[in-house]
């Protein structure tokens, strides 16, 4: 896909306050039937707190799974809540990483049935599993996730 909007569609338009709907541009409309919009179903939005394992193996570790069963890969917005204030962040949008060199990240893996929030770790330093001894800010710490699965693919 590419361009999906139909600017001259005139089936249904609602202009924003202060604009005449007969002359309003798409940017000045609250709703324009020639455009699609991000849409979210009530049951596919939430906030959840997880505690990371105290020992995290190398690779993709799923920390939270949301079943959507759409049959296609939906879009999303996911934010990370640094509950224990271990990292210099408040609410970061995923994907999120801080390390230099980069050897871990929180990210989203979306499939046709599930949205997975994943912690991906690469053992760059040859220390084996990620533990508090080498990474005091992640293993065993709490993180919250605000997640939103869109209807849109």
């Amino acid at each position, binding site marked *: *896909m*590419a*361009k*999906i909007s*139909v600017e001259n569609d005139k089936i*249904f338009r*609602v*202009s*924003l*306050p*202060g*604009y005449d709907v007969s002359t309003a541009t*798409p*940017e000045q*409309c*609250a*709703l*324009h*039937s*020639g*455009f*699609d*919009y*991000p*849409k*979210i*179903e*009530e049951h596919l*939005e*939430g*906030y959840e707190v997880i505690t990371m394992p105290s020992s995290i193996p190398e690779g993709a570790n799923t920390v939270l799974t949301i079943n959507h069963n759409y049959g296609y*890969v939906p*879009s*999303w*917005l996911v*934010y990370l*809540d640094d509950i224990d204030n271990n990292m*210099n*962040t*408040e*609410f*970061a*949008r995923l*994907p*999120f*990483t*801080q*390390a230099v060199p*980069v050897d871990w*990240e929180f*990210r*989203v893996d*979306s499939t046709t049935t599930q949205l997975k929030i994943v912690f*991906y770790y*690469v053992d760059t330093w040859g220390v084996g599993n990620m533990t508090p001894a080498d990474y005091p800010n992640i293993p065993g710490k709490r993180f919250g996730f*605000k997640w*939103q699965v869109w*209807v*849109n*693919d």
Partner: protein
Amino acid sequence: MSDYGIKVSRTGLDANTASDKQLAFSSEWPLLPIEAEGQVTITVPSGGGYVTQDIFTHNLGYAPVFIIDRISGNPFYFPLWGWCNDEKIWFEGALDESITLRWRIFRRAIETKYDGKNVNVIDSTKTDDSDYGILVSLPNKSVYSNDKRDFGVRSDVRQLMVAKSDYILEDVGGIEGTHHLGYKPMYLAYIGYYDYNLGDFLPNTYRMASEASDIRVLVTESTIKIMLYGYPWPPMAYILFRDTLKADG
């Protein structure tokens, strides 16, 4: 001009008493109209390397709000690798493996100053389980379709409603703003980029800002603040939505 608009509550709520964030849609505030979207695979040279690849030419005449996310491939993806200006969006980043991205451009300029007023901040309790709302199908799609993707707006799903947006030009420093939502809102943030070869910022050009070692985004119940740890100070912009970060929206 008077406002004769419409509002639609989320399922299970009375539109007369639902708070602003309990609405599925209101003509009081803008949504994010999707101008274009798609997927693209960025192929890396043998052994990996720095890749620049155009994704889509939009020619809107302004740098639009956009999102580029990783679908599969190269395990690390930095949102800062997604670029946008007043003509196109493109990818620029260092990859070890090929990567498939999903991209989306919205019909809204990043450089938009907007502050939507609150109408009702007091949450209502769910009292009505029926859905008496509206369906607006997309062009050439049936309003009787069972696929929710065939609709621009439906009252049984919620839309992202824009609460506020703002931007600053280069050399100002960090951007700080207040809002009146009373909760930590979901947001998108963008920063400009300093071209060391040019010796200046690229005009009207933005990247998706995400927290990493060089940037910090702070949102509270009443403020938003974006800081970049280092000079020169780029243009910065943000959008706040009527969606909570902390609990179910």
